[in-house]
């Protein structure tokens, strides 16, 4: 089975990684041991444009699901990102300070934003979208944007 679900519209191909969960803003969360890694989806980075700067809240910041934990400035927009989970930020991707474009080049890998410690991840995960659910959500958004 492929690692990604793939949707092509016009000249754009969007991928959804199968190994993580998503909120409606296109922020993904993936458990790695006791920590949860967080970043943005391929659809998010392609539709929002080249990232100029990414700022994540400081290590030690406690964030509730839905609260803003990061801001991304692209050539089109300034976007506040809502956290997909409750937890404390235990690491931020420092590489983004010099290479914010990693978010565009590798949104599911080197372009990760933050790492969280979360005590209720399994319960919160069940409130997020599965890859298949996000795939359908993304397709609807892509089509809506295409109609504009």
């Amino acid at each position, binding site marked *: 089975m492929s690692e990604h679900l793939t949707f092509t519209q016009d000249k754009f191909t969007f991928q959804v990684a199968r190994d993580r969960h998503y909120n409606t803003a296109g922020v993904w969360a993936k458990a790695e041991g006791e920590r949860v890694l967080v970043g943005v989806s391929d659809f998010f980075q392609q539709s929002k*444009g*080249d990232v*100029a*700067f990414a700022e994540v809240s400081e290590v030690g910041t406690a964030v509730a699901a839905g609260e803003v934990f990061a801001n991304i400035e692209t*050539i089109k927009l300034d976007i506040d990102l809502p956290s997909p989970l409750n937890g404390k930020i235990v690491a931020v991707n420092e590489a983004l300070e010099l290479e*914010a*474009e990693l978010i*565009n080049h590798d949104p599911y890998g080197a372009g990760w934003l933050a790492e969280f410690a979360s005590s209720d991840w399994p319960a919160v995960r069940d409130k997020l979208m599965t890859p298949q659910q996000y795939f359908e959500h993304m397709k609807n958004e892509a089509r809506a944007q295409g109609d504009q």
Partner: protein
Amino acid sequence: MNDTDKVIIIPCSGIGKTYGTVSREAAYEVIEELRPLNTQLVPLSKLVLGDEAARTAVTGKQVITIDGCSLSCATKMVEESDGRVNCQFAVLDAYRRHRQMKPRGISELNEGGLQLAHALAVEVAAAIDELQEEENA
């Protein structure tokens, strides 16, 4: 200066894009004010359309592109037109170097956009000087 010795400047053609406008404003400042005697602007749209004069202009001459975004259309079109890019600039990279100059607006740039276009134009002018020094060495 003979036309054949002029450095060719090709900015982004993105209409309705802030960074495209910054790219063009920078190119205009270089060509009209900073280095009017030793530069020539070639519109990217002419290269896209396969205009023969535009293709001839980028072939065998020193070329500087000013791309608006990572699609790098200006650079790619020069290469597809059998030209060689001597120096490539990108508005996004310039903004990362000058974060206080946040560009906004499209047909009319805000103050940050105008400042960024100027900063970029100065960098392009310096690159032109370097290219011509190398050529004359």
